[in-house]
């Protein structure tokens, strides 16, 4: 089970979290959860679908926890303005799976993906980056195929708007 799924799980976590260390933490959490919950698995979906669903959920849990810490860091900075320390900076994401000449474009893309709502982000990542089919994505997200299609459409529209603004701001 680990050998079949660990690469996909790691990549799902990486594409959601945009950070190699966080992705590794999340991937560990996923397989620990799978180990503890395997007895309760009811065969309502394929095992890999269930594992990828856990990967998506754990990644977003970790993302929320990071954002909460970032908010708290902002409040503590009000009391210690001289510290100037950016505890939770989010630098541009340098995906290790992107070749050198495509780095800049993928950084811009991931910056825009980061601004999407979580459901749109999940649909876009699973369909366009991970290469799942619409049916597989619908099973992972526990939605209908039509709902997934609609999410992808909205994600693309939102990304276009964000990229348009970026284009005008940077005067490319």
């Amino acid at each position, binding site marked *: 089970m680990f050998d079949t799924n660990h690469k996909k799980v*790691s*990549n799902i976590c990486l594409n959601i979290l945009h950070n190699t260390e966080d992705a590794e933490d999340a991937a560990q959490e996923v397989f620990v959860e799978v*180990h503890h919950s395997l007895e309760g698995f009811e065969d309502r979906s394929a095992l890999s679908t269930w594992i990828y669903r856990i990967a998506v959920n754990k990644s977003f849990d970790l993302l929320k926890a990071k954002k909460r810490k970032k908010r708290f860091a902002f409040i503590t900075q009000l009391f210690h303005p001289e510290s100037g320390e950016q505890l939770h900076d989010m630098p541009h994401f340098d995906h290790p799976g992107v070749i050198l000449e495509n780095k800049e474009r993928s950084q811009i893309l991931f910056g825009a993906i980061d601004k999407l709502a979580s459901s749109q982000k999940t649909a876009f990542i699973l369909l366009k980056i991970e290469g799942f089919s619409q049916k597989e994505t619908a099973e992972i997200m526990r939605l209908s195929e039509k709902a997934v299609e609609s999410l992808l459409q909205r994600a693309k529209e939102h990304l276009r708007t964000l990229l348009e603004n970026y284009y005008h701001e940077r005067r490319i």
Partner: protein
Amino acid sequence: MKKEDWINSILDSASEIEAVEANPYLFNKITSRINQPKTISKPMVKYNVGWAVAISLVVALNVSSLVIYKTKIHKQTESASIEALSNEMISTTNYNY
């Protein structure tokens, strides 16, 4: 580059992202976490420190506003009573010629 072409090139870059190999030690890390002995921990009440600070600030502001308001009212009352007393003294002043 034209805007639409540029946007399309960015969106299309999603298909150029290759899957990366997972950390080769991932399995070892997972098995050591699973095999860790379970420790009995005391249940702790978790609270969101950030919200606690924010709520304390709001309460402190409200209390200080109330104190300032009450002090102001007290001072106004005091000065009004002093003024009333001095007016009375002026009106009842007896000159013994």
